[in-house]
């Protein structure tokens, strides 16, 4: 990326932030040709009415009265649906893995980079809620938080803190058993510490009752700051988010769920452990690799497995993750991958909306368009699962936080020339159909109109 572009990006972020604060606490109405609330049937020609950042009314345009003072976002010809929810993400941080492995007192709040290109990508792809957790290369890795991918500071972005501690069974240097042993040791250290603390406190109270300690003296010692989150974990006061890299660690994961309040994040190679996962009986998060191949040793034939399909077949609800780059960064690609492997469309969509919302305990806030929930929605040029659809606008808590027409990076990618200098250097080169003067520094061309979906037949021989 050249420096010019990054300058323009900063300018863009500031401009949007300013625009957003201006819309503030107003009433906002989104009128759309199609609304997909996820939790209910699709609404044609509908309106979503938001006030103070929350949805107050949703329904047919004929049934919802839009107050005269409302700011109206016209999404005629477009589709509106809730923003996506990610139950587990390692991206968006500067250094997602702490070198020390047993660090439950750390928090991603100190690692989240609001300027990260990944959060920018989130908005571009219609993601509105992200649960950021420490990376998978850890043991007891610190606490996560839920953010929205918009804002200049972590405080701006914060949606919910103290969402739980990251645990990982991924082997670090040593083997799998070593990692399990280390985790067990760490947990038992915490329990011992807690038992010791309780014992000393009880002794103190006992002595005080016996009069050995002055009556006006009170027990003042608190649980060590660095131990507190871990202690909360073993006391089931805090959730743990356990990464299980493959089938081989599932057995231990099952044992750990007996003693801790755990959410499971699964790696890809899990087919051998499906029985155990079924026994787990609660929703899981899948990592971004949804398909993997295995070679049969005898026949040398490759077999493709799809984690989402296996879970769907087992009746286990699952949440999907997005990759940091490549096609898995697109929600529609991930859902498409599920569907290619035979997962029902609604179930796949819920895996990026209702299921993660529920896993995060935010199901009353996000995950669908419903009255009382946060006004988080995306406006798409077409069906959310079509490759040809683009996110036009993202609204978070009633504020517009992203507009495609003002997205400099997309303009950069769709521009005809590399940069202004190059264009100037080439004499006699004129840009056909140059639109109005761009506001940003990146040369602007109209981002392509969505091509006709193949289903309706494009113009044959176009461009000839």
């Amino acid at each position, binding site marked *: 990326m050249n420096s010019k572009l990054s300058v323009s990006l900063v300018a863009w972020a500031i401009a949007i932030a300013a625009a957003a604060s201006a819309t503030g606490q107003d009433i906002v109405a989104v009128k759309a040709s199609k609304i997909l609330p996820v939790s209910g049937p699709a609404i044609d020609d509908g309106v979503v009415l938001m006030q103070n950042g929350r949805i107050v009314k949703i329904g047919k345009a004929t049934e919802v009265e839009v107050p005269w003072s409302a700011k109206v976002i016209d999404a005629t010809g477009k589709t509106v649906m809730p923003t996506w929810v990610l139950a587990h993400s390692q991206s968006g941080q500067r250094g997602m893995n702490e070198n020390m492995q047993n660090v439950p007192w750390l928090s991603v709040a100190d690692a989240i980079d609001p300027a990260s290109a990944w959060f920018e990508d989130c908005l*571009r792809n219609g993601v509105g809620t992200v649960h950021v957790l420490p990376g998978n290369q850890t043991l007891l890795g610190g606490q996560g938080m839920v953010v929205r991918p918009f804002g200049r500071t972590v405080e701006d972005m914060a949606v919910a803190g103290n969402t739980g501690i990251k645990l990982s069974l991924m082997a670090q240097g040593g083997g799998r058993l070593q990692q399990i042993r280390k985790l067990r040791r760490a947990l038992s250290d915490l329990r011992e510490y807690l038992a010791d603390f309780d014992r000393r406190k009880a002794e103190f109270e006992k002595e005080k009752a016996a009069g050995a300690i002055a009556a006006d003296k009170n027990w003042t010692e608190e649980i060590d700051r660095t131990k507190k989150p871990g202690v909360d974990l073993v006391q089931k006061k805090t959730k743990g988010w356990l990464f299980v890299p493959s089938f081989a660690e599932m057995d231990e994961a099952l044992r750990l769920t007996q003693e801790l309040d755990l959410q499971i994040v699964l790696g890809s190679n899990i087919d051998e452990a499906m029985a155990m996962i079924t026994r787990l009986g609660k929703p899981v998060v899948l990592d971004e690799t949804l398909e993997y191949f295995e070679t049969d040793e005898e026949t040398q034939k490759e077999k493709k497995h799809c984690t989402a399909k296996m879970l769907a077949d087992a009746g286990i609800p699952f949440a999907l993750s997005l990759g940091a780059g490549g096609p898995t960064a697109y929600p529609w690609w991930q*859902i498409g991958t599920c569907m290619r492997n035979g997962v029902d469309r609604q179930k796949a969509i819920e895996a990026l909306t209702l299921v993660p919302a529920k896993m995060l305990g935010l199901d009353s806030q996000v995950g669908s368009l419903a009255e009382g929930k946060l006004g988080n929605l995306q406006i798409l040029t077409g069906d959310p699962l079509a490759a040809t659809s683009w996110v036009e606008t993202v609204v978070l808590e009633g504020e517009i936080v992203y507009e495609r027409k003002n997205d400099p990076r997309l303009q*950069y990618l769709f521009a005809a020339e590399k940069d202004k200098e190059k264009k100037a250097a080439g004499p006699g080169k004129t840009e056909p159909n140059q639109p109005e003067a761009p506001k940003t520094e990146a040369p602007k061309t109209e981002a392509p109109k969505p091509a006709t979906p*193949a289903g309706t037949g494009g113009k044959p021989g176009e461009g000839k």
Partner: protein
Amino acid sequence: MLRFPLLGITLVCALLPAQDKATAYKNARLLPGGQPPIENGVLVVGGGKVLAIGGADTAIPAGAAVVDCAGKTITPGLVDASFRASNSADMNENGDEVTPHLRVLDTLDPDHRSFARARAAGVTAVHVMPGSRNVIGGLGCVVKTFGTDPRAMVLKEDASLRITMGSEPSQENRPIRGGGVDSIYYRRPTTRMGVVWEVRRAFFDAKAAMEQTAGAPPAAPNPGIEVLTRVLKGQLTAVTTARSEQDLRTALRIAAEFGYRTILEEAQDAHVVIDELVAAKTTVMLGAPSATVVAGSAGGDGADPRSATVRLLADRGIPFVITTGSNLQSLDLVREAMFAVRNGLSATRALDAITIEPARLLGIDQRTGSLAVGKDADFVVWSTDPLDPASVAESVHIDGLSVLALR
């Protein structure tokens, strides 16, 4: 215990009836390639060939097996004009930098999983070239994606000559510093300039040989020179792999210098040299349009792939096809076409760019690349529109034989 003899028998049995008995696929949406779509169409195949194609009123021969394809879409088998058939160590002859006469067909492993994966993704014909480690790598070939004997799979034997620009041929090469000179590590070139020098020298020698043979008795036969001569005479297509802007310009320049025509492969920076491409009337084998992820670039060798590229090529009338190319991150061919559509290409054009257009470019359009009477029965039945992210190739047929279930 009897698995193998049985497999042999089933193979033979599967081949014979599939070719003898006609099968009609009806109620399908047919995208024949280079032709308008046919709704509720009928496709009749038999003897490994397309017997009939048309609307719902197309006559179905008596005795033909009928397959109802309601809701499904049928396309020609996809053609990948630049396919990485792996076993990369053997795709490059490191003994020399210029090996025009080496044939990738000699090292093609039809049993490699890349072929099985290609078939599963609806690809029925591929153009395979030697690796990109050599300045002039050798002769590419076009094969169907199913078979056990590479020679029996061949659609076109000497389909192309691969030339590679950029840093790949010079990577890891070291200048001579003591030791024996026959060591493989003393490879030339070590710079981009050196790469071009090798190409120039090779074609210079070929040209000299051409001029000499006019008069004097021919020198000892040199297979490399012979191949290069065919390129100079326009009898063999050169395919030049070039990703970044500078390499694309270089590729065009050196081709113009010796007056041979070349296809530009990968061409991730094509958007920068559009005018030059138009002027040179060059065809582009665009590598992996999905490589332009929205944030960050996946360009190889200093290239800066843009979403705009595919649309620009179309708008400026530059002939192009979509390939998976040498990008390790490239997706299934049909998904690459899907990304091209996302980036602004029409669906029809995108589908043509992975069927009939590459077939024409490779000179195999008499056999495959579109659904037309008399052509090979290479086709794919898709669960839905192939450019939908959720589409699945439900059955893939090569010469009428359903190949997904076979090894």
